[in-house]
């Protein structure tokens, strides 16, 4: 088979797995049936059982991966549409987002340091609270590992959603805007999907908070790294 045929074959396989995973998620909606979770597990099993190396799969996979860049560019649309909410609540939105971004970096990296993890792993943990595509970009910029970063983003998203209700009850968080900001800052896309189910205000706050955290993190981490290196 030519390289083009192999690429098309792997693209088709990935698409089929994704379509099936989406179908499962509509039939049975739950945290553990999210398409990228089930889809990844099936794809990994397929690669193992068909004895395919990841390098070979990447011939096709990289064509799909490419679209992450334009997808991040596309995130400017919801941000633009929410600009009025953003401006109206600039203080209760902006201040927690800035603090949350730095707290996320600081706690992630210092816990990793305490656990004695390698620098590569530390840099893969760092971007865990921002949306997957941007987290992977940041991890590769810092010489972390993009796939581990993507996995930890997934862990952050799921654990954030699992903790949310209990945390809001303990600390008596009753404002939808505040709930959305917390979810977006801690649990990015998964948190935002969850917030959207609880109403428009929470969803909008979460999506703005998620995008702002991602922008802040992607601008500040390379600058901080740059300053420390020179």
């Amino acid at each position, binding site marked *: 088979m030519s390289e083009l045929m192999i690429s098309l074959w792997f693209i088709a396989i990935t698409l089929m797995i994704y379509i099936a995973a989406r179908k499962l998620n509509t039939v049975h909606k739950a945290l553990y049936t999210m398409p*990228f979770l089930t889809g990844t597990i099936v794809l990994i099993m397929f690669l193992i059982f068909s004895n395919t190396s990841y390098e070979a799969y990447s011939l096709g996979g990289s064509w799909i991966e490419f679209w992450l*860049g334009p997808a991040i560019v596309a995130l400017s649309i919801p941000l633009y549409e929410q600009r009025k909410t953003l401006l109206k609540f600039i203080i209760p939105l902006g201040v927690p987002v800035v603090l949350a971004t730095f*707290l996320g970096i600081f706690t992630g990296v210092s816990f990793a340091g305490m656990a004695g993890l390698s620098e590569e792993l530390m840099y893969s943990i760092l971007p865990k609270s921002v949306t997957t595509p941007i987290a992977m970009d940041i991890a590769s910029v810092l010489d972390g590992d993009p796939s581990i970063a993507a996995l930890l983003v997934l862990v952050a998203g799921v654990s954030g959603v699992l903790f949310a209700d209990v945390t809001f009850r303990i600390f008596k968080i009753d404002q939808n805007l505040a709930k959305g900001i917390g979810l977006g800052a801690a649990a990015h896309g998964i948190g935002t999907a969850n917030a959207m189910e609880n109403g428009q205000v929470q969803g909008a706050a979460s999506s703005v908070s998620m995008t702002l955290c991602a922008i802040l993190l992607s601008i500040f981490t390379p600058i901080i790294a740059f300053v420390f290196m020179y």
Partner: protein
Amino acid sequence: MKVVKDFSMLLLQLAVLVLFYFVGMMISNWIPFPIPGSVIGMLLLLLCLQLKVIKIQWVKKGATLLIVHMPLLFIPILAGLIQHLDLLRVHGLTLVVITALSTWLVLATASILSQWLLKKQVRSNE
């Protein structure tokens, strides 16, 4: 015919997003700190929307398509974990615990602070 027209419109919209991505990548290579090109592209598009250089209808359909199907784009990368199974066997649990703990701290801090500031803002408006 309508299907053909809609489809070519969609492709054109995706091409605009790709263009912004490429310009972002060029700028990213040119500045001294490695801010991801995709994020620069996002900010540029936001600027163009605000300045009305680009109308939101020109990109909305393509953008929605990419955002809705973003999980598809993650699958090939997450499958890259297959190369790290040994590392995950050793450090997997530590990584999960650290991530969950840090996530919880961020969630609690951001929502408590935001609620406090929100109530302050509402009170001062009254």
